[in-house]
């Protein structure tokens, strides 16, 4: 086929194009994924026993905010990474800000506590559960985002994967904050970032295989 013929075909197929679709669908997919994750948390682990009294306390809000801020930054980068010619990668560094804040809070807490209590403050009771649950709850959001990424044109699949990983972990953290019974700042600043790093590393590795176009 001649290139000119191909251009004729493409012109014949042309219609009005909605360039905002990708952005709208990204936020809708994230909301849907958050809803599903929350339902999954409720259906599997359930809320923490003292949820009615605890949900307005600082630790629970801090966990949800950590997840939300990670997801917000990463989703913005994710959406832009599906558009060739933009280089949104450096904005992903912004995701480090909430982590740094959590780390600072943890250090202040540890500094004010006697050294004997540090281990309890860091490990809490259920650090293993956090490390397992957050990556598992991140699977559904990640699948949503990868399916969406296939409708875009990701020229840097590793960046798209990394952003999808951070976003999925953020959404999973929001969901898991309904259950997580450990409320200390050092716990939050240790296990959540490790879970986040695990999800992000896996997502970055897997994405290029799923996003060829």
């Amino acid at each position, binding site marked *: *086929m001649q290139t000119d013929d*191909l*251009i004729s*075909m493409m012109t014949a*197929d042309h219609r009005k194009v909605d360039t905002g679709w990708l952005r709208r669908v990204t936020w809708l997919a994230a909301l849907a994924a958050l809803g599903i994750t929350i339902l999954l948390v409720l259906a599997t682990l359930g809320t923490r026993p003292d949820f009615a009294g605890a949900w307005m306390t600082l630790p629970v809000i801090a966990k949800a905010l950590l997840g939300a801020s990670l997801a917000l930054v990463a989703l913005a980068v994710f959406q832009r990474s599906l558009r060739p*010619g933009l280089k949104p990668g450096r904005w992903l560094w912004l995701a480090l800000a909430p982590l740094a804040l959590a780390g600072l809070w943890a250090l202040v807490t540890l500094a004010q506590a006697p050294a004997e209590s540090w281990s309890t403050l860091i490990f809490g009771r259920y650090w293993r559960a956090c490390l397992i649950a957050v990556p598992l709850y991140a699977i559904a959001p990640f699948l949503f985002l990868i399916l969406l990424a296939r409708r875009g044109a990701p020229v840097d699949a590793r960046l798209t994967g990394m952003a999808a990983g951070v976003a999925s972990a953020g959404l999973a953290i929001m969901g898991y904050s309904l259950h997580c019974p450990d409320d200390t700042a050092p716990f939050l600043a240790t296990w959540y970032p490790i879970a986040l790093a695990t999800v992000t590393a896996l997502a970055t590795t897997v994405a290029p295989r799923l996003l060829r176009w």
Partner: protein
Amino acid sequence: MLTLSVDELETRLRPIFLAALAGDGAAYRSFLDAISLRLRGYLRQMLARAGRTEPSETEDVLQETLLALHLSRHTYDRSSPVTAWAHAIARYKLVDHLRRSGRHAGNLPLDDEAFQLAAAPEDVASEARLDLERALETLPERTRGLIDRVKLQGTSVAEAASAAGMTETAAKVAIHRGLQAMAKFLTRRGARPP
């Protein structure tokens, strides 16, 4: 045609492309004509650097790039340069093509210089090596007849549709399927060199 700088090209193409996105078919055609001229020069230079000088290979990657541009129009960000968008897609398809045909893309200096210099007037279209018509073989006879008519410049979709005994809407759907089939055909080539 004079060789425009990327900035000049952007200034010229941006309003045309925005009109095309709003649904103007004639604007879309002139955008595709202009960008394919530019991309042909870019791809020819980059392939030459990789030691590939067959004009048919340039045409293959160009057609693949144009299909990708077409099927990804919705990924264009209105606040960004349309030349950067087209260039990023062409670069992606070029790297993909080189990797598939057995050359590590890391060996290729993928800088933007060639895009700046591209579009020498002597870059004329040549035959493609991969025949995209083959991708259409799976489509129904009537659809292929329709596509053949649409390819003739000056034939409108409406005319081609009535000649093929289809409604205009059905004809548009059929053409879209044809383009998708071609894009799929190219992606499915997999690791096999053409």
